[in-house]
């Protein structure tokens, strides 16, 4: 870059910076997904089926989250039960 470039107003930021930012987000996401065990979707379905035997919950009521940290794996289950009024 020349010295005068510093004085040119409104010079657009290079596209490389955008590329880097997009990649950092994407690669982090890819890596999270990659480490997940392949049984996760099936596990989610079966847990949901068991819960629905007792409570009428929505298809999206169970979320299964898997995270890997240095030397431990965390399987997080989140089940949202319906409001009191909606219960049968």
């Amino acid at each position, binding site marked *: *870059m*020349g010295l005068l470039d510093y004085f040119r107003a409104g010079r657009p*930021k*290079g*596209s*490389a910076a955008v590329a880097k930012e997009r*990649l950092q987000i994407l*690669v982090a996401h890819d890596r999270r997904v990659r480490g997940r065990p392949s049984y996760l979707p099936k596990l989610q379905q079966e847990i949901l089926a068991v819960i629905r035997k007792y409570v009428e919950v929505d298809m999206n009521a169970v979320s299964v989250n898997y995270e890997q940290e240095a030397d431990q794996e965390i399987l997080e289950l989140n089940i949202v039960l319906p409001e009191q009024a909606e219960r049968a």
Partner: protein
Amino acid sequence: MARIIVITSGKGGVGKTTTAAAMAMGLAQRGHRTVVIDFDVGLRNLDLIMGCERRVVYDFVNVINGEANLNQALIRDKRCDNLYVLPASQTRDKDALTKEGVGKVLEDLGQGHDYVVCDSPAGIEHGATMAMYYADDAVVVTNPEVSSVRDSDRMLGILSSKSRRAESNAEPIREFLLLTRYSGERVERGEMLSVDDVQEILSLNLLGVIPESQAVLNASNAGVPVILDHDSEAGQAYGDMVARYLGDDVPMRFINSAKKGFFSRIFGG
């Protein structure tokens, strides 16, 4: 036993075959007995880049199927006595490469050689997974471009899970980054990801940076590995890469654009 090096990338057209040819030639020229194998069954190209396409009689699949022995299929390079090429088959389907068959060929090659360089096909299909399965070292060829970097990261995941070393809990494959088609000038203008950017994202050991160069096309036109073009920047950069792989401490060259004169420094451009 020979050390098995896979040249891989995920994305096509980034310079895997150019790199495989250059690396094999570079290792052989430094006195190491080397074989370079084309794993791209159905779409063979390594023979063209090596300039031995008219001497192909038997191929990799013939050897796996027992239709020819290794000595019949290996093509000795005319420029370097230490170098052999094992071409891919052009006609057979990709499933011809079985895990057992590939393992047996690599084991036999390992007896009389120091390095076996595997030129992987693009993608993550059978041929590519076969090329990397037995690897000891992997060179991930990457262009400073979003889809190439993303695919390289994907390959790293596969290398660390679907290889013999991973399955047997052995020491993991040594992974190296090779950045190709690099333009220091475009990086300076903020138009291209820099070496540091790519390294920050992939966090890999940098084996080399190959500048974008007309010499690469000239070399493939002529069937001469570009590493033999000592006058070109790309040829020299591949030479540096091989030296680094063998443990020499060589500084990175050709990363910055050519030195600018006084006036262009002031006025830009």
